[in-house]
């Protein structure tokens, strides 16, 4: 059967979509076309002609994306002109009248996870099933698909009715030996079946990637997908159709493989027992090792603490080993480097570090957190030794921006309610949003600075009794890369009878600067918000919504303090609809995976 992947690249953007696979430029909108871009913008064409720019793509990445050039009328006009002469591709079908269809990207991982991206004009003949595999017996099947906008197809089809022509599907791994079964270069059979019984068959050789690479590609694609309607609602609706759970399971298998092989190297003076283990995951930026060593070293009491740096970037291992040796000579701190084979994510990285901790107290600290006070170690030790157990079992710290204002005085939850519309009807759902108390407030605003129980604290600084942390199962490793594990941990703790507390240790936090931020992390954050909302909606609504403490345990512990409870809530008149998802998850404890 002839392959259906030969139509005009201007229409399918196949090469550009393939760029979502590793090794190419992230963040390129799927409607970007080099030729159209150059013709639409004469200033760019002149710059390329002069040699000031290498290509239109370079201009787009450097400036055009920020300038929203793809949304300019000139671009749309040029695209329409360009596509006007192009015939929509004909799919190859075993029976006539199958809708126009194309596969733009097809990848398989070492363990057999599969990722398929394409589009179909199934407005009048719904896509009902996809199967793909090297043989008919070894195929993977989907009956639910993630749908998204494809502005290139919209321009070609020239329909004014909003429709999600694009689709993608994902299936998780099979087994570790899968790669050996793949016949590299051999074409696989991809079947797309439609409601009227027609079928499109496309033969395509998959691109083979490592598991982590494929995960990153899928997350990047997910981060950059466009939709009609509310982006969150549409993305979450897609995740509900199985892709979310499949991606979570896939990521978990990747993380576990990485952390299972973790090894460590120790530097500096070692003790049988320290007062605390400061755990810092490093990703993409090695400088923080020596910057933190310098900032933390100059103060009384620091000799009672050890530092454990978990390396989520294997390419930095050599440099970090050198820096750890230098830091040992200069500062004399006890340091441990934990090596993994890749980015296991925030939760798994912290959990594996605990294996190597030589203390009964764990401090999970972001690389971009620095002490404001020289004697912070002494302050922390004194705090742990003097306060009641319920106040120090799990606590966070006030954190400050570099400009001197407050960045974090504890966390609370709020809810964004939205709707998703489809042919099946209108679905309402709640999305949980995590906010910081006092963000941007002056440090003299004591209501945000004082010690008190709070719904949650940021993982940028968490101090926890090791036994309690382990009893909670550590950080839940379902979350991809990072975000929401901290709130999840605090809610697990609250559910188990121990609310998080905030104490005023007053650290600097360069929020968002602690690691290299890549597009796939945005995709991970989106997925994590979906997971967190699904897991905790029934717990959070209504007792944990808003700034005011309504949860009985929080109120009780706040009342035991000599000072009043937290800031007042501005009155809102809003009812929060209970979604089907919330009903399903009511009473279900958070999933946690013991590392």
């Amino acid at each position: 059967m002839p392959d259906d992947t030969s139509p005009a690249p201007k229409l399918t953007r196949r090469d550009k979509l393939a760029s979502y696979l590793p090794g190419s430029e992230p963040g390129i909108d799927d409607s970007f076309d080099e030729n159209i871009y150059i013709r639409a913008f004469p200033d760019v064409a002149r710059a390329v002609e002069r040699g000031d720019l290498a290509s239109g793509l370079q201009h787009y990445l450097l400036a055009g994306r920020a300038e929203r050039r793809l949304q300019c009328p000139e671009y749309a006009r040029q695209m329409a002109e360009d596509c006007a002469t192009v015939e929509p591709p004909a799919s190859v079908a075993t029976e006539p009248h199958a809708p126009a269809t194309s596969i733009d990207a097809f990848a398989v991982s070492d363990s057999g996870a599969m990722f398929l991206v394409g589009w179909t004009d199934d407005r009048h003949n719904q896509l009902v099933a996809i199967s793909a595999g090297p043989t008919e017996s070894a195929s993977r099947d989907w009956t639910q698909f993630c749908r998204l906008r494809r502005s290139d197809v919209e321009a070609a089809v020239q329909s004014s009715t909003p429709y999600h022509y694009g689709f993608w599907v994902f299936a998780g791994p099979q087994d570790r030996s899968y790669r050996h079964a793949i016949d590299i270069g051999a074409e696989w059979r991809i079947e797309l079946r439609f409601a009227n019984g027609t079928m499109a068959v496309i033969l395509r050789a998959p691109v083979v990637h490592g598991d982590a690479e494929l995960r990153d590609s899928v997350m990047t694609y997910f981060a950059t997908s466009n939709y009609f309607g509310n982006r969150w609602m549409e993305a979450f609706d897609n995740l509900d159709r199985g892709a979310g759970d499949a991606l979570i399971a896939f990521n978990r298998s990747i993380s576990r493989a990485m952390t299972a092989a973790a090894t460590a190297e120790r530097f500096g003076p070692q003790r049988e027992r320290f007062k605390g283990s400061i755990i810092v995951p490093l990703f993409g930026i090695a400088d923080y090792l020596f910057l933190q060593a310098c900032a933390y070293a100059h103060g009384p009491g620091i000799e009672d603490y050890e530092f454990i740096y978990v390396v989520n970037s294997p390419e930095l291992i050599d440099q970090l080993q050198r820096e750890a040796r230098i830091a040992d000579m200069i500062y004399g701190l006890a340091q441990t480097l934990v090596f993994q084979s890749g980015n296991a994510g925030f939760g798994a990285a912290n959990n594996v570090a605990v294996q190597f901790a030589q203390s009964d107290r764990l401090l999970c600290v972001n690389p971009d957190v620095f002490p404001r006070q020289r004697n912070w170690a002494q302050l922390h030790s004194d705090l742990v030794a003097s306060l009641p157990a319920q106040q120090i079992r799990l606590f966070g710290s006030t954190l400050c921006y570099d400009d001197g204002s407050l960045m974090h005085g504890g966390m609370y939850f709020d809810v964004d309610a939205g709707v998703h519309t489809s042919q099946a009807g209108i679905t309402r759902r709640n999305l949980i949003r995590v906010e910081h108390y006092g963000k941007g407030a002056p440090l003299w605003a004591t209501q945000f600075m004082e010690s008190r129980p709070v719904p949650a604290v940021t993982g940028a600084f968490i101090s926890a009794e090791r036994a309690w942390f382990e009893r909670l199962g550590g950080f839940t490793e379902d979350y991809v890369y990072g975000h929401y594990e901290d709130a999840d941990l605090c809610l697990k703790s609250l559910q188990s009878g121990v609310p998080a507390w905030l104490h005023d240790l007053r650290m600097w936090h360069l929020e968002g600067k602690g690691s290299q931020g890549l597009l796939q992390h945005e995709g991970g954050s989106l997925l994590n918000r979906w997971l967190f909302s699904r897991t905790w909606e029934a717990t959070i609504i209504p007792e944990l919504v808003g700034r005011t403490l309504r949860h009985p345990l929080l109120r009780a512990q706040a009342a035991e303090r000599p000072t009043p409870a937290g800031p007042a809530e501005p009155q809102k008149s809003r009812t929060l609809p209970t979604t089907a998802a919330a009903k399903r998850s009511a009473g279900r404890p958070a999933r946690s995976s013991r590392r």
Partner: protein
Amino acid sequence: MATKVLLVSLHHPELVRGGAQQVCYELFQELRQRPGVRVCLLASTDQSVPGLFKAGARITGFDGREDEFLFLSRAYDNWWHKVGEPLLIESFVEFLNTVRPDVVHFHHFMAFGIDLLTVTRRTLPDCRIIFTFHEFLAICAADGHMVRRTDQSLCEQASQVRCHQCFPEHGPEKFMVRKLWFMRHLDHVDCFTCPSRFMIGHYVNWGLPRNKIFRVTNGQRSYVPEVVHKPLPGPKNRFGFFGQLHGVKGVHILLRAVQLLRSEGFTEFCVEINGDNLRFATPPIREEIETFLAAEDSLSPTERLVLYNGSYHVDQLHTRMARIDWCIVPSTWWEIFGLVISEAWMFGKPVICSNVGGMAERVSDEVDGLHFEMGDPRSLAAVMRRACTEEGLWQRLHAALPQPPTRAEMADSYLRLYRASDPSEDLSSVRRVGGGIAELNA
């Protein structure tokens, strides 16, 4: 028992010319002659002189010279100012343990790393650590010049946002961390010195404690030969520039002033440019200077106003100075001290200089020299014309020239710092001048 002093220098003046290393070496040479003092010099070098790098070595001797050593710097991070090679640190620690100095006097941290202050303190807990600032590199990431990249104006005060404006690719928070990084290491210093008062103000504003900073002027040996020829009679219309030819030294301002005078028909003067390192100038400045000098070379000798004499050694100063009447210092940055000013005074040459920073502090306008508006070639051209034509001006200024500080005076001041356990108490003769600045010498 002799006081053992280790001087740490950025470059050796034999390898790379520059003010900071010149001052450090003058101090080294003076201290060697003092009874009760045993001094070593550790100077950095980099891969620009690859022949000095020996396989497996990190610190070596230098040129057969007693007590002079080279630190073979590599893997240097020019943002955080640290070396990334553990063996270098190890070698430095071993060197400290070998020499066991009572005093470690840093004249720079560049090429060594600011964190070597901390490792020095850790290795020798009881030694005195002295740090002499020769520019503003701890405060300012723009080559330590405190000249704003946005508009080339002089920067009065660093802040996270202001530094971000000069370096938009780095967020304000990065400058907060940079300052934290520097401050933590500088905390280990017992005493700081600056050669000028205005510089002390900058560092105090930045956050260093005022009671730890002392002014010690940079001294030099005299380069004046025993036989000195009297100045020739006649118009004083010969100008000289001495120094490096990169942008902040302002040679291009001088050349533009020459062009202005030439365009006005005033050509009864000449200018001699002495120096090198044009390769370190920014491309536009370099192109301007090269174009001007090429055009000048194409003129007949009678039409030429500017001569480029190239680089010089300090031992050649007396011949170069003998060819001029005035020394021009047209720097477009603060210019911390200006050794060339001392050198000009040594040879009896009044200085025409920019009206800012160390230049304005040392040269008193209309008393022993002349100021012009920094960066303004018209202002400089007017002063040059006046210098050539005003009867008696040169003589009046020449007669009022101060004696440049000697290296013996400089060494005396530093020895007081080396030996005092608490300068604020023991140095009872320390004068507190305006702004509470502690003067160790006049």
